[in-house]
């Protein structure tokens, strides 16, 4: 035998484990579950639900200030996504598409509830957004003991667009590309938007802390 066939234990365990885990019949991938759910397999849709209900709820909960409403909309999102599965085309990921459904449901909610959707407050691609007022509150944020309610409050005072990009990027931990997919924007737009939103968010946190 060649001596190069040695697989070091540190890599052997996780790698073989992942190989098994990835291909194991115990864990069908999203695409397979979508196919089965599309054919009316309730158990498959249940598995998709198990995987992503926390994501969808988290997105809605961080965008809304009402937990009950977030639950109601979560239910709507999964029902709507099931109905829309026939139009879903696999492009490598299911989660961004599902969050896009949540985004759409939220927009509809704002419309029907009469709230203005201020999603045009920031330009799309007009260059980098300003980070912050020069020289102010630079110490903020390094204090990691921020009160949860203060963070929620600061988040609530952002514009819907700012709040959305921050929630998707750091609440749902999406990549810039995934965030752009959900928001229907370009990558540069999302990058600029997230910086402006973070700067605004930081200012809100500072004001909250000062108050």
């Amino acid at each position: 035998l060649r001596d190069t066939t040695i697989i070091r234990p540190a890599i052997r365990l996780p790698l073989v484990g992942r190989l098994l885990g990835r291909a194991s019949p115990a864990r069908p991938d999203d695409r397979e579950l979508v196919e089965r759910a599309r054919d009316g397999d309730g158990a498959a849709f249940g598995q998709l639900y198990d995987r992503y209900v926390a994501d969808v709820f988290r997105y809605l909960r961080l965008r809304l200030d009402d937990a009950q409403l977030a639950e109601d909309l979560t239910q709507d999102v999964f029902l709507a996504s099931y109905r829309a599965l026939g139009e879903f085309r696999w492009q490598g990921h299911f989660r961004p598409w599902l969050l896009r459904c949540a985004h759409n449901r939220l927009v509809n909610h704002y419309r029907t509830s009469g709230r203005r959707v201020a999603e045009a407050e920031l330009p799309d691609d007009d260059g980098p957004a300003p980070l912050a007022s020069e020289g102010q509150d630079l110490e903020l944020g390094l204090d990691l003991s921020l009160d949860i309610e203060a963070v929620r409050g600061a988040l609530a005072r952002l514009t819907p667009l700012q709040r959305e990009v921050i929630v998707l990027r750091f609440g749902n931990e999406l990549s810039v590309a995934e965030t752009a997919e959900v928001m229907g924007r370009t990558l540069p737009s999302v990058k600029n938007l997230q910086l402006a939103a973070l700067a605004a968010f930081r200012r809100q946190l500072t004001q909250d802390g000062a108050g």
Partner: protein
Amino acid sequence: MNASARPDSLDVSLDRVAAGDPLDGVLAALAAEHREHQALVAAAAAVRSLPTPLDAAFRARLRGELVHHVDADRPRVRAISLAWRAVALALALAFVGTGGLVVASANSRPGEPLYGLQQGLADAWHSLGRWLTPASAPTAHPVPSAPPRRAGAQPTAHPTPELAARPPEDEPARAANAAAAIDRPRAARAGLAHTPVPRRTGARATSAAVAGGPAAAGVGAGVGANLGSQTATVPSPTQPSAGEGDDSGPRAMQTTPPSPGTETGTPTPEPATPTPTPPTAAPTSSATATSSPAPSDTPTATPTLVCPAGGITGRVTLPGGGPAAGADVLLLGEAGSQRELRTGPDGLFAACGAAPGRYVAMALLGQAPPDFLAGIYDANADGDPDEIGVPDTTTLITGVDITLAPVMAGPPACTTGSATLSGRVTLPGDVPAAGADVMVFSPADGLGIGEQTGADGSYSLQGLCAGTYFAYAFLDDGTRPWFGLYDPNDDGWEDPIQVEDAAGTLDGIDIRLR
């Protein structure tokens, strides 16, 4: 600061926050002069840390309603699907001669994008099955009756009795236990008893009888007080210790609570609430569901492990049937969780406190062929791993027995290659991953070749034959494990690497860790 001069380090840092990196590490990586960047990064992390607890009752109710709704809707869905296909076919016919047949082909599964990849992965999986299957007939699996394939909980499941009262564990004992435990930094630990029980003919071991007796009380104390954070060890009154590398001390067995809740923030449920009085009989008909350990002089006695509450226990055996001591056992949960355990001298293992869900199990022993042994839990011996269903936190699944077999019983098919694969491994933000383990794996003959990356994240694997490989990388930088695979199309699945020239060099096999 001028915004237009914004350095990339901020983007990198924000990417790391979004990828779940610990904030301390991200801040430390930012240059000290970028304090306002640090503030932005910290603000982003504050959003990340906001809790959004999902009401369990709501979650369960909605799940039930959705599943019912989809099942009830099945005929309509099929009708829609047929209608859609009819439209697609009509479009295809309308465009015949102008390339429109693509529409029809795209509507059939084999024509879909990635279908070939899917098939390739399926093939790879079967190859892996062969890889883990010995060339010779395996040792008879000690399973009296093969359960149906993938039919839920195939091993024996025992609802566990209520636990006895748990006196607090004293600090010296806890310290000794911690010292005896296998040191795995992120492993939270729970205790378990080591109880000999008679194995009945035609029945699988055993029960979760922990009521009464000093051992039971000790177990209860360890788990009740420390589940998920401490090691509890229990002196075994009738069996030699199975603690790793120590046959004289108390048994120390660690389990790593699974982490299906890491993404959702769902905590591992606590075990059964202690009751003030020990139950006198366990609610199971198992011979060991008694208030004291079963007699050890039973001729057919087989040692087994007992969790104080629910969990998964089993035994790993060598190809000759003997106990596989020191084997690594992997329990892979359906939510991507992974638990690592190690068998004692008697080949036993236990994953106490396993969260409800489905698992597959495998065991590994040895470093390299021909001493590298592997096995999967495959009760029906069909070559595929069988699922282990854990219905709740109080049910003990026993009899998850794994028989090891030599990996690559014969010499690898490729012994004369001189091809080279090289590339670069990076962390998010294109940061070089120094010291990462890289392995290319050939599903054709199970050959795995690995090495570590250099300081610039580069690697070069030499001595390969022509063929198909998959490449993976792994890095544990002390903050979290990183895993990556060669996936140039970025679809989340490993892509095959074709080595056509047995003496050539294939560069650009880059792997991004996530």
